[in-house]
């Protein structure tokens, strides 16, 4: 019962207001005047003008927003997230390589070859250099900052232990091996996981930029805005043609052509940007990620191998880790199996095959060292490992060099495609708003010509 009553009450309300004198009659009168004016031709023309302007401006706003969102993402990928990812990769790589170098150099005993020492120091410099850039440029993320802090805090401790290992090794003291093991352990347990977190964060950020830089939403919104503004413009021209019996209104036709032209430009730009960015990932950064991860793993395998020799049979963890890392790297179902299909995308499949061959050579060579050690000829095993470490043409050196070279080539492909992505949109930033306003003005001029005829 109550429900019915309240409904009655609602219906009763407008009756009350109508009954009141003054205001309602004024609105009704205004409405009457507008309706009378609207059914006249000049009135209709004014209404059409408003619609056309609204359509053109709506197109301008939507197209600008669509272009902005894509351009921002493409630019961020090219100038921020990918370069930061490269820095994170450099950090990760140089730390891993520093340890591989320190452990193999340790094997030489007292007299370190100067170029190995220089190599180790160069790795440390690269690592601290990347760390400085990352400290400056990582924004926001607390996790990234804490990872950078961990590395900054522990790296001096690590290098201190490496130096203690060297000093003891120089005197022939076996405690040097314990210092080296401690240094390696600090790297493996604390420093490299932080570098890995940093790498994952930066890679995720690049992935986000790829997603927003290739998202279909801006293109769909643009399509709707184009359709709407063109439909309004064309409908307006039909209306004008009917009332004026002139088929062509040059101004309005120009406005339509401007909108259509800038639409084509924007669609081509957005599609071009999207395709270039997809290529940047598919031909560039995908390979960079897989190749650099392989290189980090190779360094880890080298460190494991050296630590096995340094342990002289007392270390069971390093040989087990070596086996595991080698199977993760392997071209049979491991990382190097992923490199092939990625390289095939850019027609560099033979490079991937060379990597597989170099990996097989490395595994072979590592097997020789292990066999020597297992048969008790540890001195010969060390001699072979040391000779390998010093030689730029050893299987490990060739594999490492090739991984780096191919990663650099992929990085260059990324940079050129990402540059294409940003340049695909260049000019649109200004052209869209300017031309949308121009189209609105042209259409208004055309409509006013007709309106003037009715004065």
């Amino acid at each position, binding site marked *: 019962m109550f429900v019915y009553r309240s409904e009655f009450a609602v219906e009763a309300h407008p009756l009350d207001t109508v009954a009141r004198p003054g205001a309602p009659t004024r609105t009704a009168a205004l409405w009457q005047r507008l309706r009378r004016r609207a059914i006249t031709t000049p009135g209709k023309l004014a209404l059409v003008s408003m619609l056309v302007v609204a359509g053109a401006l709506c197109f301008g706003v939507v197209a600008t927003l669509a272009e902005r969102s894509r351009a921002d993402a493409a630019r961020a990928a090219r100038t921020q997230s990918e370069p930061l990812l490269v820095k994170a990769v450099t950090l990760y790589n140089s730390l891993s390589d520093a340890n591989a170098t320190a452990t193999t150099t340790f094997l*030489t*005993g*007292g007299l370190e070859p100067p170029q190995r020492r220089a190599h180790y120091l160069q790795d440390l410099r690269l690592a601290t250099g990347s760390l400085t850039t990352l400290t400056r440029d990582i924004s926001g993320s607390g996790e990234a900052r804490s990872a950078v802090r961990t590395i900054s805090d522990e790296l001096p401790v690590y290098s201190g232990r490496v130096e203690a290992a060297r000093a*003891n090794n120089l005197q*022939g*003291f*076996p*405690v040097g*091996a*314990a*210092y080296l*093991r*401690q240094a390696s352990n600090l790297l*493996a347990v604390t420093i490299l996981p932080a570098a*890995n977190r940093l790498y994952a964060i930066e*890679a995720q950020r690049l*992935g986000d930029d*790829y997603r927003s830089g*290739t998202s*279909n939403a801006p*293109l*769909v919104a643009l*399509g709707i805005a*184009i*359709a709407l503004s*063109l*439909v309004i413009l*064309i409908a307006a021209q*039909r209306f004008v043609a009917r009332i004026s019996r002139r088929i062509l209104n040059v101004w309005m036709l120009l406005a339509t052509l401007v909108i259509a032209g800038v639409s084509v430009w924007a669609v081509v730009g957005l*599609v071009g940007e*999207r*395709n270039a*960015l*997809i290529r940047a*990932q*598919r031909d560039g950064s995908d390979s960079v*990620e*897989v190749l*650099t*991860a392989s290189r*980090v*793993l190779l360094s880890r395998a080298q460190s494991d191998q050296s630590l096995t020799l340094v*342990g*002289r*049979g*007392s270390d*069971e963890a390093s040989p*087990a*880790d070596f086996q*595991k890392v080698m199977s993760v790297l392997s071209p049979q179902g*491991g990382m190097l199996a*992923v490199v092939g299909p*990625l390289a095939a995308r850019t027609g560099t499949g033979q490079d991937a095959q060379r990597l597989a061959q170099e990996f097989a050579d490395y595994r072979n060579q590592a097997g020789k060292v292990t066999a020597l*050690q297992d*048969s*008790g000829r*540890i*001195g010969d095993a*060390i*001699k072979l490992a040391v000779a390998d470490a010093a030689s730029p043409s050893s299987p490990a050196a060739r594999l490492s060099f090739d991984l780096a070279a191919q990663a650099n080539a992929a990085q260059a492909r990324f940079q050129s495609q990402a540059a294409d992505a940003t340049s695909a949109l260049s000019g649109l930033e200004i052209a869209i708003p300017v031309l949308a306003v121009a189209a609105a003005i042209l259409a208004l001029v055309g409509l006013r010509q007709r309106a003037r005829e009715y004065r």
Partner: protein
Amino acid sequence: MRRRLPEVLAVAAAAAAIAGCGSTSDHPLRVALAALATKPPATTTSSSTTSSSTASSGASCSHPEASLRPGAVMPTPGAVPHGSFMERIQRRGYLRAGVDQNTLLFAYFNPQDRNIEGFEIDLLRQIAKAIFGNPDAIQFRAVTTNERSDALRDGSVDIVADAFTITCERRRQVDFSTVYFDAGQQVLVPSNSAARSVKDLGGKRVCATIGSTTILKLKTLKPRVVAYGVPQRTDCLVALQQGLVDAISSDSSILLGYEAQDPETKIVGPRFADEPYGMAISKAHPEFVRFVNGVLARMRADGTWERIYAHWLGKVTHAKTPAPPTAQYEH
């Protein structure tokens, strides 16, 4: 207008279709991250099994150090008895010995000349000399504490000299020669420490290898010390140098090696546990045990043992070379 609308929509749809071809995927990145996250495989710590084999003093025997008596006549080099294990070694051309390579003075891989050297190594070379007449007819193989008994059983080494303390439990798995070195558990402290023996270390942190007999002994000491376990022997010296511990407890043989590496340390107090070292040999070759005991007996008698001891340990102990440990034989 009605006719145009579908056409415009068709254009928009076509544009969307062009854009839709190809898309981004983070599959390679996921592969890379998964590979980088590879965890080191879990390995059994070499010490854990040692503890189980040596800690259980349940297996008791009256004279664990009593070994097999050597034959009346020692075979001359190159003329070992026909059908004996020594003959098999001779035919192979070299003796295979399982050793540690990280114990300075005892068995140590010298990184400068890439040679294995030390007290135990020289004793083993004497065994090789007794078989071949050549002390260099020997191949040293690094064995971990964990694998040394298995290495003997599966025949990958002929003999092990690796700070191997003779216990009743271990005698069930392998045979031992007579005692070639009488080690004992002691403590090593920084040279500025006020501690004069393990009794002064109550409440202090004392380092030992995880799972070793040493660390078990530490837990029974009065006054109580805080046992600080490390995975490998040499890690204790690092812990002491970094100030993480106040002392190291280990066999005297190992402590001597630490002292030689760090002049700012000293061994203090009497030994509080005996660790008699014997060379281990597979139970399948009693004739080889007798042969090795014969070589050891000759070294004790002709001063070779003292010479080797003085060469390796004399310069660190700064004490008179002791008499070699007396051989005990089974009756």
